């Protein structure tokens, strides 16, 4: 337990120490208290800004910590969403039907990622081919699902629905509780918190170090005796299951999914959130995902057509001037003092005494 807490407080993300974690607890409390002052509409909207965070965290793990860029995380988002729709839709009249849907969706996302990742990583393709191929996978899936308009495309009682998408996807039910409105909001907050804490422990634990070792130097890591292919496949599957979690939450939110959830523009968004936040900081990515989702919604619901231009410009500017990300950059500024103070406390010797 203490070890877990130590890892949680580990160095491979922004923020450490008592002050930081008190802040995080306050933030969580603020989210928990939010529905008491907000309408169910606002809560649902905020839930939407939050529900993409697991996918973004997964991409941060994959790209920021592991050095493998994927443009196709939305493919696994979609796979999970569709699988849940099919399984939960067919079983919704049975006890544990929607839970079976959740399980099936996460399994589908994980297994498909494992199969696809096997080709990518065991084929040892060049680094730049991974994003292109994952993008092709997403577009292929979107195209395929777009063609399932016909009546023959049904699984049990559920119609895949082609471009119009799959409608009437049931909300998650546990016992007598249906996760809608406020209950759904709490579900999302809880899942986001769990994902963040778990991933923060993970990146500070041994596997996380190996991941960063691979990002720094694939060959060096391999020549320490690590099977880099396996490590990359593992993190790809984790990231894809996290994308699946977001996909699951998304279909609960809208009771609906279409192939465009895997389209070209949707595929761009996770990369933008992660890059703008700062890809090697989970916290920065989570904050950026929340803020950028909100920004996009505010811009576009105000009838502003330049949302895409603004988001695109933001991405280019970040890549040019702050490649480590805006929020991570700001965060590091703030923590710099603290770090320096800490370093002074460490006995400094070897640098000078080495001969």
């Amino acid at each position: 337990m203490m070890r877990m807490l130590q890892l949680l407080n580990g160095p491979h993300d922004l923020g450490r120490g008592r002050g930081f974690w008190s802040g995080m607890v306050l933030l969580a409390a603020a989210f928990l208290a939010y529905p008491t002052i907000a309408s169910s509409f606002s809560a649902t909207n905020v839930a939407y800004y939050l529900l993409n965070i697991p996918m973004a965290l997964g991409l941060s793990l994959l790209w920021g910590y592991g050095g493998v860029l994927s443009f196709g995380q939305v493919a696994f988002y979609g796979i999970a969403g569709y699988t849940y729709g099919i399984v939960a839709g067919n079983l919704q009249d049975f006890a544990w039907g929607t839970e079976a849907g959740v399980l099936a969706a996460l399994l589908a996302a994980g297994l498909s990622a494992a199969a696809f990742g096997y080709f990518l990583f065991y084929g040892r393709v060049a680094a730049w081919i991974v994003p292109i191929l994952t993008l092709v996978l997403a577009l292929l899936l979107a195209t395929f699902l777009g063609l399932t308009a016909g009546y023959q495309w049904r699984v049990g009682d559920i119609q895949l629905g082609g471009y119009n998408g799959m409608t009437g996807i049931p909300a998650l039910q546990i016992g007598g509780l249906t996760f809608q409105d406020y209950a759904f909001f709490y579900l999302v907050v809880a899942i986001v918190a769990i994902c963040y804490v778990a991933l923060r422990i993970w990146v500070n634990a041994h596997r996380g170090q190996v991941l960063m070792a691979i990002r720094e130097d694939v060959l060096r890591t391999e020549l320490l005796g690590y099977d880099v292919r396996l490590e990359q496949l593992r993190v790809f599957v984790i990231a894809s299951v996290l994308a699946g979690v977001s996909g699951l939450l998304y279909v609960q939110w809208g009771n609906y999914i279409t192939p465009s959830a895997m389209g070209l523009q949707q595929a761009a968004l996770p990369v933008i959130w992660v890059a703008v936040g700062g890809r090697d900081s989970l916290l920065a990515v989570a904050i950026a995902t929340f803020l950028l989702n909100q920004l996009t919604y505010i811009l576009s619901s105000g009838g502003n057509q330049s949302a895409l231009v603004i988001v695109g410009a933001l991405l280019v500017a970040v890549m040019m001037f702050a490649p480590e990300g805006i929020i991570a950059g700001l965060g590091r500024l703030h923590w710099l003092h603290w770090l320096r103070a800490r370093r002074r406390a460490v006995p400094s010797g070897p640098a000078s005494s080495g001969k």
Partner: protein
Amino acid sequence: MTDSENFPASPGEIEPAQPSAPCSGGPTRRGLIQGAAGIAAAGVVLARPNIVRAASETPVKVGFIEDESGNLSIYGIQKLHAARLAVQEINDGYTLAGGPVGSGCLGTMGLYSPTPPTLTSGPGAKLNIINDGGTPSEHAIVTADTEEILIPSGEKGLLGRPVDLVSSDGQSNNTLWQQLARRMIQQDKVDVLVAGFASAEREAIRPIVDQRKQLYFYTNQYEGGVADGYTFCTGAVCEQQVIPVMQYMVEKFGPKIFTIAANYNFGQLTAAWVRSFAPVLKAKVIGEEFPPLEVSEFSSVIAKVQAAKPDWVMTLLVGQNQSNYYPQAAAAGLHLPMASTVNMAQGYEHKRFTPPSLANMHNAVNYMQEIPTKRNQDFVARFYKMFPNDPYLGQMAQNTYFTIHLYAKAVRLIGTTDQEKVRRTLEAGWAIEAPEGTVFLEPATHHASHYIRLAATDEKQQISFVREWPMIEAWWLQRLGVNLVRHPEHKQYTPQEDPFFKMFG
């Protein structure tokens, strides 16, 4: 804000409004609706006399979502502008002629008849697939002959309140559509929602509409089949467009049909209509091609058409990429007669494409700005006075325009914006004098009958209307036994659920 000078006579003082001329110029269905106008059918329709109240601060909110940017914006902006025009006219004190057609008949029928009532036939009538077209026959309706369709409503605004158009841009993004629909319903608390271009957008927001019991109008032409108690579809559907155009094409060019349809819901379903009704018209579909929406290079499709040697081609192509088919086919020397239900009336391809890409194209439309009637020319003039730089005024824009007027009429009649009551009022069955002609809203199916015209292009892509059907019902849902008044449901039927279509695969 436009000036009101371009409108017919300004209404002097505001009088206590009558239910604006119920049935004035409305239809009379022989044997069914005679004199119905006078009968205030109880309970439902005229429960409260209409009273003009003191001007209230709170406006009547018309929620409106369309794609003003992204791929579909060439349609969305037309629709937005038409909605603005309608709201402007309502606020200036005007309304379209029309009223409840059968307060004593259809609405009541909907409530009490075991079988769905229709406008053309009473209970138990036979499936009447095609109106003969041309002149109104014994069985056709008597349409209004008035050309002055914009008449004073007796008040500025609606129930003494101004009408506000709350509009948002869906940006062709389904998730944003859902967010916006929720915002309109839960936060803005709109009194009515008018929204949706692509079927995917409609299907994205319909669950939200149903959950919140929101009165919702979908004004687009579409593949048909939506049977939803809270949704009214005022655009034309397959049976109103596909069969008339097929009938004309088979008579004029021959029985061998080649279908090229976009490989998605609309294309697949419409192609099923073509395939299934060809035998009824003694024709045959000799080839079908379903290019995906992403495809923009059509040489193999063109080669297949050439090899099959059809008499004419049914093109059900959708979107930017697929519109490339026309110039490519023309360049490849494929000059077969073409029929469609999607082109020209919405995306004004006949104006955008260089001739002769779209020469010899035929489409059964319920509206195009070229319709040469006086009532339409007046409408077009009003529209371009307000939006002088707009490129086209199309079918969906007209549907949006009369739909908002229709809603206002129903509210004025029932005297409240209470959505449940307005919905019940609309289920009385309404006629409205739209720019296209008289349109009937059918209670049982929540769909509209339309005045259908066959538009054909010449070598220079000029439009002429070569045949017309003054009233075609949306009869397919009736055939399936849908009666939303008695049995509200919330689904979309597909042709596969109809045994008739199953015969043709």
